[in-house]
């Protein structure tokens, strides 16, 4: 009669194995969709490597690499409708790009520029630094959508570590109680900085946490873009009907936590090796080759194009006029108080004094 620890066995959804072989039958997905998924992944990978390099050169600030998580991010974001909203954390650049967030502004974000969170109309909330806080904003967004009948699903992106925060719990519970059009998309990349997921929670899977909230959940191979894409579609369908869903995408953070982190302090090279073999790009690429809709020429061309796109975005970022401290005072309230006006003013006089 007791509930025993981890009694629920969980099966992981997978369509493509590590070598790009289809498991089971082919899902309903067009060649264009497949190729588009892969192109986005290439762009994400190129962006990530460039960002890392730029950080090492001191041209951008702290950056949280996403290599290894392209399938999870691109697969999920590609399934969104335009009216849906993303509530990202700091590692979701790729998902945000797919949903329309300008790469230029992401670079500006890493450069500590005030325009760094300008989505330019895309339905992407500003990057959230406070772990799991975005889950509640997504709840509020989904709630607004339900109230206004916007047919918009709110997707909260978070990591395995994020599930330990109280805000995750409160958000899941609210989503369940109000039956909100929401997806909690957890990228379980095995690590929260230096803490492996096995020490983050005693729950064997993240997805079983759905059981605490009377919510549906599904675990998917987060390195299999096809599985993620198809599963996210299902999840969005349910969410649109007011059935919130928790998705656990099992993936891996190939790089450091951020450019300020040294993962050799806490994890084995062998762990990394194992997971590099499961690289998300490799898998879909092999599948596309096998399917005959991709080849080396296209591959080369796509990488070149991606390099160009990234270069252009970075150039634009670099050429954006620098932020000025005086702008800050206009961003605190719709109308600034006399105190803020005076402080803003003091900066002007300070220059005179200088």
């Amino acid at each position, binding site marked *: 009669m007791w509930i025993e620890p981890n009694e629920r066995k969980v099966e992981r959804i997978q369509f493509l194995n590590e070598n790009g072989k289809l498991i089971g039958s082919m899902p309903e997905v067009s060649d264009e969709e497949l190729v588009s998924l892969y192109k986005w992944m290439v762009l994400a990978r190129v962006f990530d490597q460039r960002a890392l390099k730029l950080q090492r050169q001191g041209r951008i600030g702290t950056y949280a690499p996403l290599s290894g998580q392209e399938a999870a991010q691109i697969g999920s974001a590609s399934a969104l409708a335009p009216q849906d909203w993303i509530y990202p954390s700091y590692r979701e650049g790729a998902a945000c790009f797919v949903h329309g967030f300008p790469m230029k502004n992401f670079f500006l974000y890493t450069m500590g520029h005030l325009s*760094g969170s300008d989505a330019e109309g895309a339905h992407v909330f500003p990057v959230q630094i406070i772990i799991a806080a975005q889950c509640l904003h997504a709840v509020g*967004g989904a709630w607004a959508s339900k109230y206004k009948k916007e047919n918009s699903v709110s997707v909260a992106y978070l990591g395995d570590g994020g599930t330990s925060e109280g805000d995750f719990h409160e958000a899941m519970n609210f989503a369940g109680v109000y039956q909100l059009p929401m997806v909690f998309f957890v990228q379980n990349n095995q690590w929260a900085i230096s803490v492996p997921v096995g020490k983050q929670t005693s729950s064997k899977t993240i997805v079983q946490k759905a059981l605490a909230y009377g919510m549906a959940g599904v675990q998917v191979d987060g390195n299999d873009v096809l599985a993620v894409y198809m599963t996210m579609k299902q999840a969005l369908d349910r969410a649109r009907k007011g059935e919130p869903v928790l998705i656990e995408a099992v993936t891996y953070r190939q790089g450091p936590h951020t450019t300020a982190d040294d993962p050799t302090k806490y994890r084995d090279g062998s762990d990394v090796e194992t997971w590099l073999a499961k690289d998300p790009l490799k898998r879909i690429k092999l599948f596309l080759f096998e399917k005959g809709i991709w080849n080396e020429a296209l591959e080369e061309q796509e990488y070149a194009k991606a390099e160009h796109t990234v270069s252009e975005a970075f150039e634009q970022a670099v050429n954006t006029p620098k932020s000025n401290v005086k702008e800050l005072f206009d961003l605190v309230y719709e109308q600034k108080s006399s105190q803020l006006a005076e402080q803003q003013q003091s900066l002007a006089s300070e220059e005179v004094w200088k």
Partner: protein
Amino acid sequence: MTLLTMIEAINLTLKKEMERDERIILLGEDIGKNGGVFRATDGLQAAFGPERVVDTPIAESAIVGAAVGMAARGLRPVAEIQFFGFIYEAMDQMASQAARLRFRSGGRLSAPMVIRAPFGGGVKTPELHSDSLEGLFLHSPGLKVVMPSSPYDAKGLLTAAIRENDPVLFLEPMKLYRAFKQEVPEHDYLIELGKANVVKQGEDLTIITWGPTVPLVRQVAEQWEQQNISIEVVDLRTISPIDEDTVLESAKKTGRVIIVHEAVKTGGPGAEISALINEKALFYLSAPILRVTGFDTPYPVPSVEDDWLPNAQRISQSIQEVLAH
């Protein structure tokens, strides 16, 4: 015009605003059928339905966080925190989320929302129900912090708070909820946020206060009047932003200032007001600025709270001290 208590004025305001603007949603613990533990939302769920007056699970961070999310997507949530002492649970969503959304988004998003909470002492509640923590939010840029001291002000200020395009923390003195009635117009009127109210003119000394202690301070001021001491009483109404002009003008006029609040003394709002006057009107001062406040202890158990709160005796003692200069 009707005679209303403060709680009735708040209830009326919520009703009027909800009729006017259907983007307004109320959320909080026990605000639905129960009408709130103080009945601030009495009858509103019946009038507007459970979609617009929503009972939430017990999760303050979620209440505020969800409101931020709603507000960013075009609604005008009015959230209730059942007692202000529980606001600690929502501190991140208050001070780093609601307060900073406009800033973080470079001005592209905003969080027009109100967080209402009963606060202040003197009604013998259990622990952590009576704490005056407004000072924490004075120190959190991006929020406005408003507290009425009368039914009339409650309506005008709450109407303004709801129509504000930035998050407003609206603190309602429990002690005054049913303390007295006042004429409150049915029709729309706004009291501008950020403007203090000189509730009594005076020449010899200024007392600055807000919310629960306004009636007390008025009463003390009137007693001193009989001894020919003329005290100006400033009801700050909004502590963030502080109405510098009114504060400085009064301080310059009388040269003697006392600040009265229920929050603990050290690091409290009284400190800011004192520092402000020091900075901008030092040479008008004839006496040190004194603070009559809660003592530097946690809010105490009910049996001693009346001795802990600022009272007429402590205020009068400070008046005497200040006048001695």
